[in-house]
C-alpha cells in the first residue's frame, strides 16, 4: 500500500489513498470539457475563439447569450445533478442496497405531488415563483412521514424502503388525480416538470441552490465517517460505538435535503441518483471521499449533457433534460438489474 499517505494537520488526520484521485482528476477534466462544450453549443454555435471573446465581453450579443442564458442554466443543471448523485450515494450507503435512490424514500414523489398540487391549485394566483419551495417542502414532509411510519423502536433499512414505496404509491395516486382533474394546459406544464427540466434557469436560482448545496456539503464533510460506517451491520456498528439510529436519521435527512433541493429546481429528474453513484463505484472501488467526489462530478456531467442534448438535438424544440437522462440511464439500469441476478 505504497500509495497511502497520512495527512496530519494538528488534531486533524486522514489517510489518503492517492490512486483513485487520478481518476477523479480525469473526471474533473471531463467536467470542464463538457461545461465548455455546453457553453459553446446551442441555437447559436460558437467556436473556441468566439466563446472566449463572448466570455470576456459580457455585454456583447454572444456575451449575453453565454452569460445570461447558457451559463446559469448549465450551472443549475450541474448543481442539480451533483446534489442528486450525492443523495443517491448516501442512500445506497445507508440502505445498504445498490438499488436505493431518492425515489425509493418518497423524496421525488413527495416533491412531485406538492409541485403538481401547487401548479394546479395555486399557480394561477401567485405565479410559479414559489414552486421550488413547495417542492422542497413536499419532499421533506414525505421523508419525515416515511421515517415516522417506519419507526418502531428504531428503524431498519428494510422498513424504510418498504414504507417509502408505499407512501410513493399513495402520493403518485394523488399526483395522478391532480393531473387528470386539472386543466389540460396545467397538465402539460406539470408533465414537463415531472420529466425534469432546467429550462429557463437564471442566476438567482443558481445562487439559491448553490447556497443550499454548499451547506449540505459542509454537513456531508462532518458526517463523512459515519456515512462510511453506515454500510456496516447494525450490531457491529453499535459495538464500535456508533449511535446507529441518530446517525441513520441524520444521514437520511441530509440525503432528503439534497434531493429535495435538486428536485425543487430541476424537477423530477429520474435516475441520476441511481446511476451516478454506480458509475462512481465502478471507477473508484473503495468507499471514501474520492468516491463521493466522483459521484458528484458524474451526476453533474450527466445532467449537463442531457440538457445539452435536450436543447440542441431537436431544434427548435427544447426538450426536458429528464428525457435524456432516462434514455441514457435505461440501458445502464437494465445491465445493473441483470448483473444482480448473477
Amino acid at each position, binding site marked *: 500500500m505504497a500509495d497511502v499517505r497520512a495527512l496530519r494537520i494538528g488534531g486533524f488526520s486522514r489517510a489518503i489513498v492517492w490512486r483513485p484521485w487520478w481518476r477523479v482528476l480525469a473526471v474533473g477534466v471531463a467536467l470542464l470539457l463538457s461545461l465548455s462544450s455546453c457553453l459553446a453549443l446551442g441555437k447559436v454555435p460558437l467556436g473556441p475563439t468566439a466563446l472566449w471573446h463572448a466570455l470576456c465581453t459580457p455585454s456583447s450579443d454572444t456575451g449575453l447569450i453565454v452569460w445570461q442564458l447558457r451559463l446559469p442554466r448549465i450551472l443549475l443543471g450541474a448543481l442539480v445533478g451533483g446534489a442528486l448523485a450525492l443523495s443517491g450515494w448516501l442512500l445506497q450507503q445507508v440502505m445498504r*442496497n445498490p*438499488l*436505493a*435512490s431518492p*425515489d*425509493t424514500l418518497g423524496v421525488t414523489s413527495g416533491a412531485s405531488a406538492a409541485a403538481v398540487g401547487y401548479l394546479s391549485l395555486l399557480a394561477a394566483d401567485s405565479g410559479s415563483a414559489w414552486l421550488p419551495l413547495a417542492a422542497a417542502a413536499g419532499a421533506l414532509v414525505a421523508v419525515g412521514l416515511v421515517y415516522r*411510519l*417506519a419507526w*418502531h423502536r428504531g428503524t*431498519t*433499512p*428494510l*422498513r424504510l*424502503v*418498504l*414504507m417509502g*414505496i*408505499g*407512501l*410513493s*404509491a*399513495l402520493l*403518485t*395516486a*394523488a399526483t*395522478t*388525480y391532480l*393531473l*387528470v*382533474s386539472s386543466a*389540460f394546459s396545467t*397538465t*402539460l406544464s406539470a*408533465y*414537463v416538470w*415531472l*420529466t425534469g427540466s432546467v429550462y429557463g434557469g437564471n442566476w438567482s436560482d443558481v445562487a439559491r441552490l448553490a447556497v443550499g448545496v454548499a451547506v449540505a456539503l459542509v454537513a456531508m464533510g462532518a458526517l463523512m465517517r459515519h456515512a462510511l460506517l453506515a454500510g456496516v451491520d447494525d450490531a457491529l456498528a453499535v459495538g464500535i460505538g456508533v449511535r446507529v439510529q441518530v446517525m441513520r436519521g441524520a444521514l437520511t435527512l441530509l440525503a432528503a435535503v439534497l434531493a429535495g433541493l435538486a428536485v425543487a429546481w430541476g424537477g423530477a429528474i*429520474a*435516475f441520476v441518483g*441511481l446511476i451516478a453513484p454506480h458509475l462512481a463505484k465502478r471507477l473508484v472501488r473503495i468507499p471514501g471521499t474520492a468516491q463521493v467526489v466522483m459521484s458528484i462530478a458524474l451526476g453533474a456531467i450527466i445532467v449537463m449533457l442531457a440538457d445539452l442534448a435536450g436543447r440542441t438535438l431537436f431544434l427548435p424544440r427544447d*426538450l*426536458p433534460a*429528464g*428525457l435524456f*437522462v*432516462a*434514455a441514457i*440511464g*435505461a440501458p445502464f*439500469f*437494465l445491465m445493473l*438489474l*441483470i448483473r*444482480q*441476478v448473477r
Partner: protein
Amino acid sequence: MNAHGRWGQGRRARRRLLAWSGLLLLAMAVSLMAGSRWLGPEALWHALWSPSPTNVDDLLVRTTRTPRTLLAAVVGASLGVAGGIMQTLTRNPLAAPGLLGVNAGALFVVVMLVTLGGDLPAAVTHLGAFGGAALAVALVWGVAMRRGHSVGPLRLLLAGAALTALFHAFSQALLVVDQQGLDSVLFWLAGSVAGRPLAGSWPMLIVALIALVACAPFLRQWNVLAAGEAVAIGAGVAVRRLQLVSVALIVVLAGASVTLAGNIAFVGLIVPHLARRLATPDHREWLPLAAVIGAVLLLLADVAARTLILPREIPLGVMTALLGAPFFMWLVRRQGVQHG
C-alpha cells in the same frame, strides 16, 4: 379427488365461496344502480329484462353501466389471482403486479404505440400491452429468482420500484414529446373502467376468463410449490414447467387487466392477503376466493370512485391506490418483515 370435493374444498370453504359469490352479485347490482343517477331495483329490473329503446335509464344501464360492471368484475378477479400466483411463486407476501412494474411496463408499450404509431387498431395496442407486461414480468422474474432460490422482499421490491420508475420515465418522456398523445392516454395512466364500450373489450374479457379457469388444474401443484422448491421437486412436481406456466398465467392475467382498465394498483397485493386470512393456506380454497373478493373489491371501489365527488369522478386506479397503499404500509408495520 380426495376426501374433500371436486376441487378439494371442505364444506365450510364451499359455503364461504358461495357467500362471497352472493356478495359479488349484490356488488354487481349496486354497481348497475349507482352513479350520477341512482336507479332503484325496479328500474334496474326493467332495464335488464324488458328494455325500451327510448327510456333514458334503460340506455344508461345497458350502454354504460353494464360494460363497466363486467369490466370491473373481471379485472378485479384477474388482478387478485395474478397477485396470488405471484406471491406463491416468489414466496414473497409483498409481491404484486402493480408493485413489480408489470402495469408500468404494459403502459409504457401502449404509450409508445399511441405516440409513435398514431392511429393503430385496438388489437395492436392490446398485443403491445401484453408484450410490455411480459417484458416486465421477465425482468422481475430474472431479478427475483437467483439460481432457483427466491430472493428477499427488499431486493424484489426495490427492483420492482426501480423498474416502475424506469418505465414511467420513458412514458413521461414520450408524452412530453408528443403532447396530443397525452390527452388520449391520461385516463389510462390513471386507470379506469369507464367509457369503454364492450365491443372492443370482448376478446380481452374472454382471454382473462379463460386464463382464470386455466388456473384450476395447477392449484394442487402450487400448494406443493409453496412448501419450497426442493420439497416440490421431491414430491414429483415438474417445477420448471410449473414456474413457466405460472409466469405465463401472470402475464396473461395482469396484461389483460392493464389492457382493459389501465393502471390499477394494489388490488393484486391486498386481495390474496384477505383471501388467505378468510380461508386456509390451501390454494384450492383461497385462490378461487381471491378471484371473487378481487371482483367485489374492485366493483365497490368503482362505485365509490364515481359517486364520492359527484358530478366528477375519481379515476379507479387512484381510488385503489388510496385504499391500498395504507393497507400495504400497515402490512409492513405489522409484519416487521425479516431482513431480505
